[in-house]
């Protein structure tokens, strides 16, 4: 995402910023793939959290406080 941001703002930047060597060559070759991958990862994380939200015990503070064990080995 960082390189995407820099590329998209590159056209209107001042001279000093144009001296950054790295972002420019990356622009034409692989712009979409990392973004797509990242958005599908974000989607996966959202799905996972939704799934866990659905099974988490309802009162977190009370449930965690109630988990008291006697010592073991």
């Amino acid at each position, binding site marked *: 995402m960082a390189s995407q941001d820099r590329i998209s703002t590159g056209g209107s930047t001042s001279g000093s910023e144009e001296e950054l060597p790295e972002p420019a060559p990356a622009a034409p070759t692989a712009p979409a793939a990392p973004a797509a991958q990242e958005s599908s990862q974000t989607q996966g994380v959202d799905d996972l959290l939704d799934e866990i939200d659905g*099974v988490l015990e309802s009162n977190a503070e009370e*449930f965690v406080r*109630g*988990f008291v064990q*006697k*010592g073991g080995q």
Partner: protein
Amino acid sequence: METGGRRTGRPQGLPAVGEGISVHRVMGTETEYGIIAPALPSANPTLLSSQVVNAYAATLREGLGNLAGTRWDYTDETPLTDARGFRMDRARAHPSQLTDEPPELDELTAEQIALERGEPAEAAVLMNLVLNNGARLYVDHAHPEYSSPEVTNPLDAVLWDRAGDSVAVAAMERIAATPGFSPVILYKNNTDNKSVSYGSHENYLVPRSVPFSKLAEALIPFFVSRQVICGAGRVGLGALNQDAGFQISQRADFFENEIGLETTVRRPIINTRDEPHAVAEKYRRLHVIIGDANLHEVSNYLKTGTTALVLALIEQGRAPVPVLEDPVAALQSISHDASLTRTVQLTDGRAMSGLDLQELYCEAVTAALPPDADDQTRDVVARWQSLLATLRRDPMDAARQVDWIAKLSVLEAYRARDGLDWTDPRLALVDLQYADLRPDKGIYRRLARRGDVELLVGPVDVARAVVEPPRDTRAYFRGRCIAEYPAEVVGASWDSLIFELPGERRLQRVQTREPLRGTAELTGALFDAAVDAEDFLSRLLSGPERRVAP
């Protein structure tokens, strides 16, 4: 046993201890499960634990297997014998160290539990079961514990450890389905995050000829750093959870000593209990108490596999010995740094990270690996190398293999989405519920079902390991005796079976002090040929070595 005996078992002719750099040796795991009944907040934990044992016994009575409400035979237990060459005075021992007595000191007895259940005192409440798979399921202090049967390699250790989790789930489901009982939840974790820790132990057979000091000096830095590949992750810092944050290990903050006999107080990195459960002149049982209970199979596989490899290095005199200035502080310092960059001080002036230390051991194993190493040994080494490289690059890339990283990924996702800081009780709940063994509720279980976790053993193999013992250790003899002669086997332990035959006044005790005897190969035909327990015993004991299993 598609994943066990035949394909990945011990190569013919290779000794289980003492020779060659290999992951193959006699080993086993013990898991103390966390336990609560949410609707009964003041329930006695010993009572709840006995419900787990009895509920599993009830599933067995219903035809899933044979039941022997087996007495544990304490004859050969010596929990106060120290590997450094002395015995602890019984009067000086903490009551919880007296594990060679049935649990009756400050805990409930079976009779008290029967009374509490409104049953006559003589009603049969089981505190101990020996299972058809050769494992032991029992009430240990205030927790139900599953001790796996003896296996000969890390993949089988994972398989029979997973079988224990299936046993725990079956018991939970049975309790939940029984009228009049309040549901119980079991957790495969190691702390209540208040002040208490309970164990997940490993056992490795080691030749007695290796000096204990050689084991200790090479194992301390290994155990201090091993958590980076197999820690289970914890929300909270300090034994009293006094500071907020995440750490790699469940257990690290509960250790206070480098070496010692205790397992419940002043816990040591190296436990010196010298209770071999085998021919004492030939073997030690290295009792490892520092590990976290693993849900990730790869973590569990590498935990036992790399430890077996380091033991092999020690036996060959080829183990690195990076001497830490303060091992206990290093253990906790490494645990408290999820970036894996923090270093700890060595006495020679070097500073090394947990990853550096692991690479040191991994490189020593790689250099010592024989060209004809077996498949499983090569697999463990390759996975170890590759995981360390991944951790070096970006630890979060190993979420599919390592418990603490999978847990941290979920926690960080919550923090990012909801802006939670480490004191938020929802993060503590994610930590706890990660280890919930209920298939629908457990977060690890959810990750596994989504395909977010690398699995090593299949459900069919696990189901078989619940009811069948490993074929290549004495666990086969124990499990098959329990399965074939449930009425006549009245007692058992790791190194004995006690038979009571109808019409005979004396009990017959058969010793199994050689862990690699009593195998399917050596005793299978005897079981197949015998018509009953009496016939079996007479065939068994007519051999050249009476009262000892072949």
